[in-house]
Every structure is written in structure tokens, then in C-alpha cells.
């Protein structure tokens, strides 16, 4: 009826207990634990999962990041970000995060998985912060910022992030690869997204490769200071 899992855990299994025994367990073990000692009584797996989450709650840097986004993202996106940061911490420590990720994807099927991936890759630490800081220097509307972030995240499978951490050849190859894949399986559009003057320039050079392509239409959206670009290749 009680199994010792390791030196720190006891697991109750009531499958062989009589009704009378179950009642006694409730009166003598569960009620005292829950009511008097204010302990939380969980299923074995949930107890382990909770401990994993507790060990990976946001640290000071994470809290600072969350504070930055608290008033900038819609509530459900913020919640997904918080969960993704915890998942990232667990992942860095080598924990299995499959179930945590599945929870995020299930709760937010439209964007959860992508947001989680972008969090792990550090895009909320850099890219989306910089996007906000660049946008706020011009005629700014928080709803526009939110829409931009949401668009980038939901379109992740068909987005190329132009960053200085990749060479031009790497970026060019990525565009080619995604275009070919999307032509076969996708929605008929590929987004290129860049922040910072250098990345905007690089993006424009990448787009030049397709200017002569009759089967591709290019739409460019560049801010006044030319520090943010979102381009769409439609095919």
C-alpha cells in the first residue's frame, strides 16, 4: 500500500486497500498532512515535475527580462514566455523538458511551440528587446509592436532571421532552403526579418537575389530610420 520510492519519497497505492482502510488512511495520514501541516499532496509524477519547475524558476536575470515584457506582451504570451524561461533553465541543466514543452504547445497551439524555441535561442533577450527599443524611437503604438512580435513568432517556420551571427552565405543558403521547402509544402510566403542598420542592409542585399524572379513578389516594410525590416517573398 505504501511504496518507498527513494529515501525521500513514499508513494501511496490504494488499489488493494479495503474501503475501511482507505478511510483510515484519509483520517490518519492525508487530512493531517493537508489540513494541519499544509503540505501539498500530489501524484508521484506531478510531485517530481513540480520540483523540477521549482528548481528552475526564473533567476534575477530572468525576472529582469520578464519585467521588461510584462507590460509589452499580451497576458497569454507573457505566461508562455515565463513558462518557456523555466523550460530553458531546465534544458540548460540537462533535464528532460518534453512534457513541459508539450504543456506549453497544448495550452497555446498557435504560438506556444515557436515562442518556446525562440526563448531558448535567446530571441527575447536580444531581438525582440531591440525591436521594441527601435520602434519606440519613432511613432509608437504598443499594439503594433505586439502584432509584429506575434507575426514573427507564428510565422517562425517560414521566417529567416537576418542576424550578424550568421555569414551572408549562411543566410543566403537558408533563404534558398526555406523557399524550396515552402514551395513544396508551405503557404506561399517567406519572411525575412532584420533589426539594426547592418541587418537591414544585408536583408536588402538578400532580396536583390530575387528581384529578377518572375515567380516571386517582394514586399518590404522598413521603418523611417531603416533599423527594422520585415520583407515578404510571395510565390
Amino acid at each position, binding site marked *: 500500500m*505504501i*511504496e518507498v*520510492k527513494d529515501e*525521500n*519519497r*513514499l*508513494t*501511496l*497505492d*490504494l*488499489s488493494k*486497500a479495503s474501503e475501511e482502510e*482507505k*478511510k483510515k*488512511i*484519509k483520517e490518519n*495520514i*492525508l487530512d493531517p*498532512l*493537508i*489540513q494541519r*501541516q*499544509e*503540505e*501539498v*499532496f*500530489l*501524484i*508521484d*509524477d*506531478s*510531485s517530481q*515535475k*513540480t*520540483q523540477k*519547475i*521549482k528548481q528552475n*524558476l526564473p533567476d534575477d536575470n530572468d525576472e529582469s527580462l520578464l519585467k521588461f515584457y510584462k507590460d509589452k506582451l499580451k497576458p497569454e504570451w507573457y*505566461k508562455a514566455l*515565463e*513558462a518557456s524561461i*523555466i*523550460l530553458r533553465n531546465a534544458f540548460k541543466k540537462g533535464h528532460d523538458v518534453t*512534457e*513541459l514543452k508539450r*504543456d*506549453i504547445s*497544448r*495550452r497555446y497551439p498557435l504560438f506556444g511551440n515557436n515562442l518556446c524555441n525562440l526563448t531558448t535561442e535567446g530571441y527575447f533577450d536580444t531581438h525582440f528587446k531591440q525591436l521594441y527599443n527601435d520602434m519606440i524611437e519613432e511613432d509608437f503604438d504598443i499594439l503594433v509592436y505586439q502584432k509584429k512580435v506575434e507575426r514573427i513568432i507564428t510565422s517562425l517556420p517560414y521566417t529567416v532571421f537576418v542576424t550578424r551571427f550568421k555569414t551572408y552565405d549562411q543566410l543566403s543558403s537558408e533563404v534558398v532552403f526555406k523557399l524550396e521547402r515552402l514551395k513544396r509544402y508551405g503557404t506561399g510566403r517567406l519572411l525575412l526579418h532584420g533589426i539594426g542598420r547592418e541587418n537591414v542592409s544585408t536583408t536588402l542585399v538578400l532580396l536583390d537575389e530575387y528581384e529578377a524572379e518572375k515567380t516571386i513578389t517582394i514586399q518590404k516594410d522598413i521603418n523611417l530610420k531603416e533599423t527594422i525590416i520585415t520583407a515578404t517573398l510571395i510565390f
Partner: protein
Amino acid sequence: MKLSKITFSESAREDILNLYGKSIDEEGFIVEKENFSQRVLTPQGEEIRLEEWAGIRKGSEAFIKNDIFSLIELAKKLD
């Protein structure tokens, strides 16, 4: 508040619920034994299926879901 060192197996879920006056309706949601039409709610106001149920804590916030979002709120409150 802390996690108990006593946990229960998945197979004990229904027994534990039964001991606390709960049952399962035909769609798999946890309900009040005395009133099958009344589904129990998590602190977030969500109905909860048997397989989603993680456990109990004291007070009105008795029913905890097994997903990361519910367990984050719980983990934040633990000592």
C-alpha cells in the same frame, strides 16, 4: 507550504477523489459526488479531467492541474 514526501500513484487518483467527496462524470471531468452536474474548478476557474489532476492542497484552491502553468503557480508558493 511544502510538497509532501508522501505522494500517490496514478492508479490511486479515483480513490483519493472518492475519499474527498468527488467523482468522475461521463466525460471524464471531476465532479461533486453529491451533485454530478457540478464540475470542480481549479483556482484559475478551469474544469479538470481525471488525467489532468495533479493533487490536493489545503483550502479552496484544492484542485491542481498537472500542466506547467498550474505547477508554476504552485512552485512559486512552496517554501
